[in-house]
């Protein structure tokens, strides 16, 4: 991560540069860390690109307050691989291997915010695979969803769907 952090800015003032030069784009994370990336990387992030387009490329420093300096390097790495056409199953497996479910969720939200289709697609599959055998309670917590059933309604539904409740992993107490 360290080499990608080129400078730390105290203010988020928008700098203007000559649009014709292929200057790097500065992405500023929510915790004010600046990441300098090639314009091609920014193209992968639809949210960033549409912002650049709207300002005719004059603005090259883009604050991303919703994304932490923990997640941004992951996002950039994935985009770099994607441009190089080097997204393989092996790379993807390695990419999420060390991330716990909460971290994957954060990254998913970052990808959703930046509107990076490939990453979003990949991470939603990762999450789907990880929650497939989880309990209803776990999924409620994970998605932040409030149970709007009455206890009677839920009990009835669970009875109807009894066949789906086999092979459910026990919830891990420490996980949430």
């Amino acid at each position, binding site marked *: 991560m360290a080499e990608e952090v080129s400078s730390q800015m105290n203010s988020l003032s928008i700098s203007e540069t000559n649009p014709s030069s292929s200057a790097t784009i500065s992405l500023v994370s929510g915790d004010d860390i600046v990441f300098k990336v090639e314009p091609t990387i920014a193209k992968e992030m639809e949210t960033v690109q549409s912002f650049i387009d709207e300002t005719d490329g004059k603005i090259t420093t883009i604050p991303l307050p919703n994304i932490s300096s923990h997640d941004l390097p992951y996002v950039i790495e994935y985009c770099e691989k994607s441009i190089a056409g080097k997204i393989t199953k092996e790379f993807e*497996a390695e990419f999420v291997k060390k991330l*716990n479910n909460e971290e994957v969720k954060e990254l998913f*939200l970052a990808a959703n915010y930046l509107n990076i289709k490939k990453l979003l697609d990949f991470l939603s599959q990762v999450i789907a695979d990880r929650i497939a*055998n989880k309990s*209803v309670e776990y999924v409620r917590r994970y998605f932040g*969803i409030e149970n709007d059933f009455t206890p009677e309604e839920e009990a009835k539904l669970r009875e109807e769907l009894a066949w789906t409740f086999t092979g459910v992993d026990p919830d891990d107490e420490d996980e949430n």
Partner: protein
Amino acid sequence: MDSGGVSDADNIDKRRPFYESSKAWKARNLKRKKKEKEVRRSFTPLSFYKGPTTYHPGPMCNGRFAGKQFVPLSLYTTTVYQPDPVFPVFPVCEGINSSESKMFPVCEGINSSESKMFPVCEGINSSESIGNKSSESIGKNSSESIGKNSSESKVSRNSISDQAALSILSKLPVKSLKRFGCVCKSWSVLFENSDFMTMYTNLFVSHDYHTYILSNDLDQPEIPPFLNHSEFHLLHNTIKFNLPPPFPYSDGHVSILGSTSVNGIFCLGKTSMENQYVLWNPATDKFRRIPSSPTGLIPKCPQSNLYEELFFHAFGYDKLRDDFKIVQYVSSFVCCSRGFDRYYSCLPAKSYFEIYSLKTNSWRMFDMANDLSHWSYPPPFDGLELYLDGACHWLVTKYHSSKHVETTLLTFHLSDEVFFTTPIGESSYTLETRLMVLNGSIAFFSNHHGDTVFHISILGELGVSQSWIKLYISDPFPPLRCPPIGFGNAGCIFFTKTNSTEEDYELAYLDLSTQKTQIIKDHGITLGKKSYFRVGLYKESLFPIGGSSH
């Protein structure tokens, strides 16, 4: 050019000159069933054949047909593996879960235990700004206007927006999806949510396979002998494949049992000759002839009115024993015009399964406790048998009346050698049905005779009839001939279609995800009026099967 005016039954007969239309077949089957039932009622029960080492004619047999009517068991290998057949048995569904994870080996080993090592991440986002993709939300606004409010309530911290949640849910196996219907009210009606269904069905196509097209053409359509030449092609692929040399008798069409390759191996058969199989691995260009089962070796007594027919053909892989198996059901019935009662009173009808093992290169008898006589038997090579994840599946029907036909999925687990059923539902006599694999799930295709509308449902859990979920209802344009000739990669359904001169057929497919129809062009496949096509899935492997090369 439009075949809409011609009735569907006519089309079928034209397209499959050596094939009975399925209506005729059903009628014949029904007639036979009736007779067979009568036979059974008055005769020795099937348990008579149970002992693998004892062979003797039926106790009431008058001796006339003794020794000729029954297959001596010594012809089978004596190492009989016979678990207690239990019925019904519902093993844990392997289908959907395992196939899903096949596509994505990513998440293995990362589970709750590992995540303990990581502290729970503190929220960075407020949920409100998530999913807000408009560019105004960044940049122009100063940073303070966009929430960095980590002090906000814990509930709203990085929760997933509804739309984003749908994209995750659409990638879940059916069983999980159904279970998460208990999460909240809106999730309990996901299958009625059109946004979700669009996502779900689009994702429900697998791109992991090749689509093969097997064609059979008559060399001289008008002059006997009616010899076929057969071709095997992969769609969008120019590699040439040579089918193994023809079977001893060359009439009939070469076809593939179960439509799909099993670990890269095809089991070829001929529609005219049951009991003749060749295993073929196109990737290694090796093939291997399978010896005929003992049933076919027994000469029939000339005066005998006993007929043997083979049903429930299937080819699959026994994971437990690392063995390929071919399964078929031998059913005998008496058919004579006179003296019904006298004949019937002395001949037991015999029905049993035969199982071929590639490892031992031999057939053995497998007697099942379940009575299959009340089901109509599926003919092979017609999209009614299927292999998936260690089990063979067949579509069977039970006829009550023309408007009341019960359809069921019959499953035979190749490792455990047990049968179980998953009822599909009730329908009418005119329903054409097929089995297919959609993204690792068993799917049920149905359409009514003369109608172009078809339905596709997928099965969530074997043995659970309420886990059938209707995925598609589609109405392709009329020139497509239902029933389809097969199912290919990426959710494509293949049909034949008459070309502009109405003399030849064209191949076309309907892409389920786009609902668009495409004609296959420049494929190098010989197309003739009497062509017989089958389409299915192929995934290459270098699995050795022994045998010889071309």
